């Protein structure tokens, strides 16, 4: 990355007796070029002179264009970003003070914008992504070769069969709530992955599955997933599009509607898996009062206490992401869990090193991750 910074300090004021100011023009860092950052020490009216009328910023470039005003400045301003500039072109800026009878240049500085090809401020993230991708590919490759991998028992996922079986015995439906976030939320992606497994099991038992949605895109994906799952177990006849529907985009409107459905339809099993916010307790407590067996899971740490209190089983944080792997036991996906474990060990090691170095007075190590 090229930095071109010219810091020129100019003291010009003579007649008015006002103070000169520090002024610098630097190429805006980590951008695609065409921009300069102007910084100066804030000017107080009294420091310049009580009689000053206004402050202005002027620009001249080397292309022969006349000197032009870029902005009116307020007292107290200290930065300005000049954009849509030509890379490699040198620009000169002046801060002017207008007095009743005279105009005075307070400071002048020059700068040249340039294009950066790589965001060096994100170098730590870059290495993190490369290392993690490497780990993921390595363990996936090993998993393909048939090496057995251990995965600890997750009680909430062991209970999926029990919950669906209970609903089947009672002749009541299952309600699956994929959270209230959008498809770009990884918790929602994890949730629809689990939905695929739940739909297959529900299909095998011939139990009705209801999926009310808050996000229309999630609804479309859920419909596709349930349909495909039923197809895979040879029961396409079970698919009822009307059971996987959109409710409302309103957070508490959704909570009200789903609570109402719980009270009217009395599902025997409720799955609350995905991203939840303040409505989590309303949903889970309503389910609790209807006596349904409830399996919840979220990476929203603020909602975990509510689910733990009101639900029978709760998947905490990353257990939600591991759920589809756990239920499907696909070797390649199991490899990704192993990669996560190693990455976590690496993060913990870095935290430990950073803490020890910080205690010892080192600031560079921690600074590299800012």
């Amino acid at each position, binding site marked *: 990355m090229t930095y071109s910074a010219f810091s020129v300090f100019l003291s010009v004021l003579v007649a008015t007796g006002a103070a000169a100011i520090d002024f610098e023009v630097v190429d805006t860092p980590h951008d695609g070029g065409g921009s300069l950052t102007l910084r100066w020490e804030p000017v107080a009216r009294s420091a310049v002179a009580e009689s000053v009328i206004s402050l202005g910023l002027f620009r001249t470039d080397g292309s022969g264009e006349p000197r032009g005003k870029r902005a009116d400045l307020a007292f107290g301003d200290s930065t300005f*970003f000049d954009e849509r500039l030509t890379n490699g072109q040198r620009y000169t800026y002046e801060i002017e003070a207008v007095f009743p009878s005279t105009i005075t240049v307070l400071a002048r500085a020059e700068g040249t914008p340039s294009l950066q090809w790589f965001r060096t401020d994100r170098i730590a993230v870059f290495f993190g992504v490369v290392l993690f991708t490497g780990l993921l590919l390595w363990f996936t490759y090993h998993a393909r070769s048939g090496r057995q991998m251990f995965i600890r028992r997750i009680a909430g996922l062991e209970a999926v069969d029990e919950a669906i079986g209970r609903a089947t015995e009672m002749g009541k439906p299952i309600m699956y709530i994929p959270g209230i976030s959008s498809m770009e939320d990884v918790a929602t992606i994890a949730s629809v992955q689990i939905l695929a497994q739940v739909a297959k099991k529900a299909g095998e038992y011939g139990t009705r599955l209801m999926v009310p949605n808050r996000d229309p895109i999630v609804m479309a994906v859920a419909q596709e997933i349930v349909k495909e799952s039923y197809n895979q177990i040879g029961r396409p006849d079970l698919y009822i599009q009307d059971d996987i529907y959109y409710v409302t985009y309103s*957070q508490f409107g959704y909570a009200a509607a789903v609570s109402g459905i719980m009270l009217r339809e009395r599902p025997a099993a409720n799955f609350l898996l995905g991203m939840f916010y303040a409505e989590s307790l309303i949903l889970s407590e309503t389910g609790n009062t209807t006596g349904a067996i409830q399996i919840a899971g979220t990476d929203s740490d603020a*909602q975990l206490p509510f689910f733990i209190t009101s639900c029978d089983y709760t998947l905490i944080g990353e257990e939600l992401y591991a759920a589809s792997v756990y239920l499907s036991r696909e070797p390649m996906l199991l490899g990704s869990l192993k990669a996560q474990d190693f990455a976590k060990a690496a993060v913990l090691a870095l935290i430990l090193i950073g803490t020890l170095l910080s205690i010892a007075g080192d600031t560079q190590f921690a600074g590299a991750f800012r």
Partner: protein
Amino acid sequence: MAGMKGLDRTIIYWGVAFSIVIPLLWPIGFSTEVTSQVRDIHRFIEQMPESSAVLMSFDYEPATIAELDPMAAAFLKHLFQRRARVMGMTLLPGGVGLAENLLRQEAAIAGMEYGRNWLFLGYIPDGTAAMLRMGEDVAMVFPTDQYGTALDSFPMMRGVKSYRNMGLVICLSSTAMPQLWAQYAHDRYGAAVAVGATAVEAVRLYPYHDSGQLVGFLGGLKGAAEYETLIQTPGDGIRGMDAQTISHLFIVMMVVLGNIGYAATKWRGRAGASTGRNHAPVA
């Protein structure tokens, strides 16, 4: 006391209702202490240059007005005191009416002029895309204000292109929007982000404040009361503190009674082994 274990939940509901309604009808006048998370925002706004541009996103719907409206009102009062140029917007369709009313109301009280001191950008769907896009160019997301006037025709928008030109971004929300604003507006574009969140969601903001991703945050009605204390303008936040205090005391009392009942049952040797299910204790 053992009977406490099977207490009908409607009794608790009635208790909560009374503990909220009575202090609202007959106020006690509790005052609150100010936490560092709230003080940091106040200090930041105080130190901002006068007439800084501030983007205020009303990312909440009618459901959470009890907690978030007092915060929004307190922020607006302070910003208008500091002569900041406030751009209101919302990422939720239900937030349009709320944001518009509150902006108009507070601007009228402070004598602020539309287009010069404040404006309302309106609603834009797909929050994350909008947050990211505004890091490049606000006018690409909101070419006009809510009423169809081009942004560049407003005097207050002169020199305001993206987060770079803003002194502060404020998000008021009951969902994960604050984290998204921190991750996108701050981490990606370096904007200073302050938050007003419901008490339920505020607990998750501590790590973001500690790491400097958030200037500070107001948590629940207490956060609003703290901010009102700092700007010395009592509002719904301070008024709500009585009800919140009494209801908390009621819940603590119920927890204590529940434990006495639990201990009594256990002492009599009637407590069964934990079933792993959470259903039974409250009828």
